[in-house]
């Protein structure tokens, strides 16, 4: 249960990426990479996660900032704050969907310190898991949310696999829609992973939300030029208009030519443990006129196969409506 009193740990503040990677590798499971701390401190204060060694990444200036890439895409350092992304003219101009998504995260205070890396790598927000119960995701052998009386309003429509938590990140669906690449540096070198593959569900690893291995650092997100300046739609529905996680969010990037949708990528947040790529919708609407009829068809097809829990079936009409709006109103 929540304790609100951080336990002591040893803090490292490396100023090179290599130094950070070395430290994380040295302490393995006992180490924790820290960026803005908005997710981490929650765990620390409740003493649910108690790393002995905390590696503060914020001194790694090389992981900061937004740069234009040679191909016309944009590279965003993992330590860039959500506020910077929200207000950056390059992002606003080419990928407004990401500026919109970043601007809908949490509250201004959290956006001012919260980093894009931390936002993408954040842990699940299932309230039982956060409470500190011994559920599957916490290494235990039960799920508290997926029970006859479990309070699972915020939980998943798809991908239940011992765990029914959802992806809580607002920027994650936008990254999937933009087909962003995650640049990762670890003890074994560098690698680049597509946003869609970066996030993983409980079927792959129930104790992690991303492919990041212990010791690996997300250094940058590279957004290819493909979708720059296309037609975007982002909408997040939460109970409150600020300082609240999504009940459902939708992110779509599309190219509309002569009134027809020629290309589209679409992802939904908070309906699955990963941002849910809506491939069926993409297939249904590609080549179709961007009109109300297509929009309705898109909405209907988006919820096929959804398997609601006791308290979250409202997410079905909500997702359907958001997908409809994405096509209709973008």
């Amino acid at each position, binding site marked *: 249960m929540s304790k609100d009193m951080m336990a002591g740990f040893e803090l490292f503040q490396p100023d090179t990426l290599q130094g950070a990677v070395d430290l994380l590798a040295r302490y393995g499971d006992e180490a924790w990479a820290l960026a803005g701390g908005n997710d981490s401190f929650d765990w620390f204060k409740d003493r649910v996660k108690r790393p002995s060694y905390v590696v503060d990444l914020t001194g790694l200036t090389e992981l900061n900032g937004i740069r234009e890439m040679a191909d016309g895409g944009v590279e965003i350092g993992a330590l860039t704050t959500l506020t910077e992304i929200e207000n950056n003219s390059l992002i606003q101009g080419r990928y407004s969907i990401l500026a919109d998504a970043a601007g809908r995260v949490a509250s201004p205070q959290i956006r001012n310190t919260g980093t894009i890396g931390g936002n993408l790598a954040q842990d699940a927000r299932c309230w039982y898991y956060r*409470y500190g119960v011994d559920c599957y995701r916490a290494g235990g052998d039960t799920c508290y949310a997926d029970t006859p009386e479990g309070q699972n309003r915020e939980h998943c429509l798809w991908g239940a696999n011992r765990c029914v938590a959802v992806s809580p990140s607002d920027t994650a669906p936008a990254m999937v829609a933009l087909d962003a690449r995650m640049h990762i540096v670890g003890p074994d070198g560098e690698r680049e992973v597509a946003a869609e593959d970066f996030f993983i569900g409980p079927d792959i690893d129930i104790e992690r939300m991303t492919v990041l291995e212990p010791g690996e650092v997300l250094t940058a997100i590279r957004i290819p030029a493909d979708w720059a300046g296309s037609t975007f739609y982002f909408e997040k529905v939460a109970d*409150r208009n*600020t300082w609240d996680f999504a009940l459902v969010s939708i992110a779509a990037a599309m190219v509309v030519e002569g009134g027809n949708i020629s290309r589209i990528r679409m992802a939904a947040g908070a309906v699955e443990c990963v941002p849910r790529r809506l491939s069926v919708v993409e297939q249904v609407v590609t080549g179709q006129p961007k009109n109300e009829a297509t929009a309705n068809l898109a909405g209907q097809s988006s919820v096929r196969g959804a398997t609601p829990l006791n308290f979250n079936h409202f997410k079905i009409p909500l997702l359907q409506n958001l997908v409809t709006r994405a096509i209709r109103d973008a």
Partner: protein
Amino acid sequence: MAYKLIGSNFVPPDIRGKVTGSAKYAEDFRVDNMAYCRLLLSPIPHARVRSIDTSRAEAMPGVLGILTAEDVPAQPAPADPILTNEPMFIGQPILAVAAVDETTAHDAIDAIEIDYEPLPFCVDPLESLFPGGDDARTDGNVVDNRLTGPPSIRQMKWGAADFAAVNEGQLPTGEPAAEWSYGDIDAGFENAALVLDESFVTAGMSHHSMEPRSAMAYWQNGKCFVFGSTQSQSFVIPDLANYIGITPQELVYVAETCGGGFGSKGSAYPVMSIPAHMSKKIGQPVMMRISRAEEYYLGFARTGFQGRIRLGFAADGRITAADVYIVQENGATVGFPDWPSAGETVSILYQPPAMRWRGIAVQTNTPPRSAQRGPGHNQTVSAVEPLIDKAARALGIDRYEMRRINAPGREARFGENQAPVTSCYLQEAMAKGAAAFDWENKRALSGQRNGSKVTGVAVSQAFHPAGFAGFDGIVRLTPQGQLHVHTGIGNLGTYSHTGTSRIAAEVLNCDWENCVVERGDTRKNLPWNIGQFGSNTSFTMARTNYVAAMDALSKLKEIASIDLGGEPDDYDIGEHRVFAKADPARGLTYAEAAQRAIELGGKFDGHELPDDINPMTRESATALAGTGIIGVARDNLPITGQPAAFVAGFIQIELDIETGKFDIIDYLAVADCGTVIHPQGLATQIKGGGVMGFGMATLERHIYDPQNGLPGTVGLYQAKPASYLDVPETMRTDAVDEPDPQSPLGTKGIGEPVMGAGSAALICAISDALGGHYFNRVPITTDQIVNAAAGRDQSHGPLQVNTA
């Protein structure tokens, strides 16, 4: 009547500190050698502590002491214990550890091993009332906490037959714990053209006070000093002294500022005595900071209702009978009597000629319940106002008209005894609001569609009692020519400590620059006053400050007559002088008169005191004796009715039926609060109450997992009070501004119904936008609106609690 001070704005003496950060809240106080304590909170909803092993903790460097239930006075069941060996909810304090710092204290807590025997628990009152259902406590499941005597606990079960219609969503109405009625109810229903019979649920919600209930304490010269977080000042002292185990005279209590209480800090609460006990044990000052999460665990919540109301209506809209049943979710301890307030609210707002109220407060293993802004009243209007709309629709009557037809007037009657009220201008508030809001034209917008958005408009009413009588006042005129108003009311944050002090200044015709408000600290010699709760201050404290000022006034005139001849009645006051009416040049300044009072002694300077004042007032006045003219008196002014405050609310929203989200386009509320004492303060109350009401109506959540008794809303982001982006940028406020005849300058309270008006208005507007869809539930959260708009069933069972 035009006043010099009453009705105008002022700069509250504590505002600079609040804005600059220099104001001191409980956790800002520091003293030498201060230790810190942390609490070990129960991790299970109901258990018996079999044994506690503190050996590892005690061996840790920096640990100074451990306090358990054995070390503190036991409280009579069902009162909240200070510490307990039978925790009854998750987060209940079992023991405290003091150490050199908080981290050490908490490390020690983690090293303590407790052997618990888990006991049955329950988070739904109806489950507990069902035959064989689990009780939240070993000594029973039903508490009588009406303020008519000491609270009691017993076991009550209903028969299975009572639950026959529960699956259809009808509240079972078995044997109540209390009931009253008046008039011929059966005839009322028989003669009705329309009868509504509706069951509903209102959620208990946390208070979200910005300042958690931290406290610091130390012992010095035979006195215990406590720096706490309470809405009230003098009223706290007897109970707090009792929790500590000392006499009120041995307690010095400091509560200069309070970062919100909303009812949860109205009086003393047991945990605030822990630093005093710990300090005594370890011989050092002790600071206990309560964290945000802890505030959610042990910091109280509003009670929840599972209710049923039957309302009979004549064809013309007049209510013919009302029948109210409230099953109250009362937490595991004494809770609060919201349930009777539900009956009173229905009786006053709709003036049914015949009515019955029944109720029962049932224990659950959830956070302790206390008053929360409009306790009972605001749940009731949130649940019942939409049903008034439902009846209006069924009868084809305008919703404003429906309320006007039933609204209380000057002859309003209240509750079980159909007692009179001191004043009622609800009809005037409604009319004023309807005109300013332009109800005539706005209602035509109802249901108007703009894309996915639908307009909803609504009107609402709310009520709360608004005052008490019989407390004491002290004012002091000094040889420096200053008026000191000693007020023991407290600092809830409404600035009414000062607003009502200005009544004394008004009576004595003092310039405000020459007035000092003494408050927030026992050492300021404060009178016995009621707590700052129950929308009472502007009535109760108007009376105490008035009688104390009148006492000072008569002493001024008497001194003048002694020194300058004639009778006291020959004298008048003005410009800080008491002077002969016949020859205004002949007189004494207040400073001179105060000096003379000291020379004359006796009653003039507080050496002789009235017999009927409270011992606390006597002690304070005695300490002040010899420092000037002491005006001191008990409020013996006549009172022949229930002071009552009313609010009318008007709202326009746009509801997006695709997302369940809404925007409040316009909100206007008009208060019947008697004479407006402080326009800015009033506007802030109306708006702030509105915001809190909007949260209550739609956003705030209170989740309990029924299988494990786990709380799901233990942070601001989980419990979701309204944010600044959820409420309109501007809200309109107004007041009837008609004096209450039983308040000396006409003022009465308003702090609570302002919330109910906001909540009920928004709920009614959402129903309106959905074409008259009634949720019979508070709050109406996004998911419920989405489901309703999509024509889907709701996830929660009809009477299920703690799901939103």
